[in-house]
């Protein structure tokens, strides 16, 4: 039994995914079934299991390690999953998404994400990457009638397949050098590689794979299209979940395995991070579609997270984890509201759709404002502490210029977050579309996200402690 200990949270999620699939199979046509409930049970179970495994440092099969680091990511993923499930129940019927497939795929994606953060073997990381990617490709194109969705899924799939190939090449070269795919052995072998060129190539190819998944410039091209074409709830899910999992693996590989080679990869990633922050913030200003806008915002946020990895000190490592949590609750809240207001006919994702939201839905407008301010990094919200933490880590290691680019790009990004606020509060709605009602559970979930935003913003000490504890386990 102990051999399975580390995989328990993942297995629970897989089981709930299978249950969701079976439920769809035995459902009578037209019968309404609360399939999201399976997901909620599974994710809550995984959350509880992750808490029990805290500090246990369980290992399964030598390739999956439930150290505090992966458990922290697990908990973030469970929160993302639970919020997504609650919103989904409201949304998917309106959006005409097939329920069984949707829930099963989402849960499979989450299991892949959890595995990715916990894997200590390059091949298992690749496996997890594929599990989550395939599920997300399908989710993106789940609305079969939508041309935009099909285009998005196709683009995402093609470019994703390319990057997976890059990643696989990286693994192959790493294997050539070290004769193993285990992270610890790869790390020692790479550091003392007879041919540094080969080692650099391996690092470069792995970095390309990760940068694609976290949508760092110049591998970000798919992001706006995929985020715009996917159903909004899927956008909310993948903009937070995929990013959390990918950054988990990114941090593990680059900060522990490849730590000895810091001198080589830090300059390259610095350039990538600077470009990511600038492009994300500046191009975001030009968008009129909220989903595209938040896609560019997520690119900018990937840049800030990269900054945490570049800082490569203990503060930076913990900052990445804290930021993932802060970003997840705020972004999921914001995109969740967009999803909750949309219907199949009227997606409610244009900037002007938000005009006068304050008049008709003051509570939703208020919550949306909180999430946007958090994304923009205003105190006293989670986003401020997250950004401050990242920049503090960068400054500690002397990356003043990157920190300055970071803060200035965040000022630019505030401009487009405020465009939404201006629409909601300061513009009268000319032709208000009929906005659907938001159910009580969804309001509760949004309320929870808001509380989390303020809790992390006002009393972050305890969560920062957990982040610091969890990061120590991977080094």
């Amino acid at each position, binding site marked *: 039994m102990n051999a399975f200990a580390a995989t328990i949270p993942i297995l629970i999620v897989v089981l709930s995914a299978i249950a969701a699939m079976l439920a769809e199979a035995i459902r009578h046509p037209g019968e309404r079934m609360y399939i999201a409930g399976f997901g909620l049970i599974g994710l809550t179970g995984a959350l509880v299991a992750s808490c029990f495994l805290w500090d246990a440092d369980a290992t399964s099969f030598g390739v999956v390690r439930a150290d505090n680091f992966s458990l922290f990511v697990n908990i973030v993923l469970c929160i993302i999953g639970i919020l997504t499930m609650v919103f989904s129940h409201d949304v998917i019927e309106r959006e005409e998404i097939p329920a069984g497939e949707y829930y099963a795929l989402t849960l499979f994606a989450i299991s892949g994400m959890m595995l990715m953060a916990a894997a200590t073997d390059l091949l298992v990381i690749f496996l997890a990457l594929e599990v989550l990617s395939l599920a997300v490709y399908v989710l993106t194109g789940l609305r079969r009638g939508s041309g935009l969705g099909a285009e998005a899924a196709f683009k995402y799939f093609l470019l994703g397949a390319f990057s997976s190939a890059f990643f696989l090449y990286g693994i192959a070269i790493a294997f050539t050098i070290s004769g193993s795919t285990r992270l610890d052995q790869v790390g020692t072998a790479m550091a003392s590689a007879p041919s540094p060129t080969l080692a650099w190539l391996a690092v470069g190819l792995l970095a390309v794979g990760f940068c694609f998944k976290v949508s760092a410039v110049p591998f970000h091209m798919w992001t706006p299209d995929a985020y715009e074409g996917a159903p909004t709830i899927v956008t909310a899910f993948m903009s937070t979940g995929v990013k959390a999992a990918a950054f988990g693996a990114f941090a593990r590989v680059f900060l522990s395995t490849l730590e000895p080679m810091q001198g080589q990869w830090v300059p390259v990633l610095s350039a990538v991070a600077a470009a990511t922050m600038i492009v994300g913030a500046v191009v975001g200003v030009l968008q009129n579609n909220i989903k595209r806008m938040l896609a560019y915002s997520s690119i900018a946020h990937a840049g800030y997270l990269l900054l945490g990895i570049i800082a490569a000190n203990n503060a930076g490592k913990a900052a990445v984890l804290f930021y993932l949590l802060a970003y997840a609750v705020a972004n999921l809240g914001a995109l969740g509201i967009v999803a909750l207001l949309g219907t199949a006919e009227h997606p409610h994702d244009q900037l002007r759709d938000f005009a006068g939201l304050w*008049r008709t839905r*003051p509570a939703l407008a208020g919550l949306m404002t909180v999430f946007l*301010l958090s994304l923009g990094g*205003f*105190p*006293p919200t989670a986003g*401020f502490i997250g950004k*401050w933490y990242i*920049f*503090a880590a960068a*400054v*500690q290691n002397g990356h*003043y210029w990157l*920190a*300055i680019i970071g*803060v*200035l790009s*965040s*000022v630019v990004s*505030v*401009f487009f977050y*405020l465009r939404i606020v*201006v629409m909601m*509060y*300061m513009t009268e709605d000319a032709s208000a579309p009929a906005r659907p009602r938001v159910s009580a559970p969804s309001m509760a979930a949004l309320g929870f996200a808001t509380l989390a935003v303020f809790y992390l913003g006002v009393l*972050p*000490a305890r969560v*920062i*402690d957990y982040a*610091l504890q969890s990061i120590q386990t991977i080094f």
Partner: protein
Amino acid sequence: MLLTSIVFLPLAGALLVLLAGGRGDRPDREGVVRVVALAVSLVVFVATLYLWWAFNPVDPEFQLVERHAWLPQFGITYHLGVDGVSLFLIVLTGFLTPLALLSSWQSIHKNVKQFSFFMLALETAMLGVFVSLDLFLFYVFWDAMLIPMYFLIGIWGYERRIYAAVKFILYTMAGSVLMLIAIIGLAWAHSTATGQGPSFDLLDLYGLHLSWGMEMWFFLAFTVAFAIKVPLFPFHTWLPDAHVEAPTAGSVILAGVLLKMGTYGLLRFSFPLFPSAAHYFAPYLAVLAIIGIVYGALVAMVQPDMKKLVAYSSVSHLGFVVLGLCALNVNGVQGAVYQMLNHGVSTGGLFMIVGMLSDRRHTRLIAEFGGLKAVVPRLVAAFLLITLSSIALPGMNGFIGEFLILLGAFRAHPRMTAVAATGVILSAVYMLWMFQRVNYGTVTNEKNRGLRDLTGREWAMMAPTIAMCIFMGVAPNVFLRPMEASVVRVIDRINGVTTFAKSRTSNLDPRAPTLQPPTSGTGVPR
């Protein structure tokens, strides 16, 4: 607990206002909301007066200190305290907020609940800025303050309100994020210098040894953030837009309190944290201040819009404050702090008057008025007193402040001060000319015939303001005495290096075209 209560009382009141306002848009609850908000702000004012009473005027150190761990991993504390410099700015905030709420009584009818909420939330942020003794905490309040002000301008402002609101927030943020980097850098420098880990505590950082390069860059980052807020020439371009487009209450708070945060920041943070850099850059800042004084006055002179005229006069007046600070002696700094209070009261009063006129006529153009003296004599009398206070007539508050500033500045930079003194004359020119065109002569515009004179509510706003203008003019010692010890303490902190700075400036010409590191290179003994 006193300071915590004062700071968070308005926020609690803001939540109370939300409850009192009921769900949704309820015009019938408007009266209740206004009264609750006003009552809360008056309670806060009384609390600030109690603070004054509890304050020990001979103690130069921070008083009523509260200190709790907040983010112990990074040496961030919840550290509050008050000294003679911040005391009166707190009282000023408490004084102006109820007046600002009163001034909106008639002009704001849209979403009064949210308006009152943002006003009170803003008051919490402003008070927080003045009492924070931890740089991180200070930055939290400093940045959080932008949000309510943004909504106040953007929702309840005039025609170009959205442009003004966005410009205000982006402009201020662009400056302050660089300060954030400097704050972080300073905390890590503390870690390197002492080996005790990072600290954001102001009192820990006051004695820190920094290399000249670091000190210079950090000083510039802090100072640019504050200069934008002041606003010092050439960072002033956001101000006319924000002032003109904001609702009256917003302009009163903006001119009365927000601008003081910039000068307060210079005095509390920039100068004492980086004394060598302060001595090096003070003459340059003084030059900018003097350009601001003259430029602001000249531009104010040609404004057709009263509100814009008052806005540019703020650029000019705040230039005096910065000039006083740059003198780096007791007279100049004390005058500067006093002038901050004066400007808060008298410019706040001017914005209220302009608000009253625009409530009545829905225009602020000087050309639309004329001959008001015959129509609304009481209003014009109040207008006159506030105008005289603003142009620093002896016997009014402005005189004391400007006199002390010029006295102090003359000792430090005599030639520049001579230029600055022309600002005194120019301010009389633009203010009196505006006053004359609006109030004297014959009534040229028929619409001005039937205007109402001051109402009871407006008396309630003008009477305390005018009383303060005169009281501060005839009994300045009531205010100067309690701030003196603290001002001397701040000057000591800045001049703690005097002997060293003098020996350094002797071999480093302050007018040298390029910045050079001090000869010792590494650190500055204090």
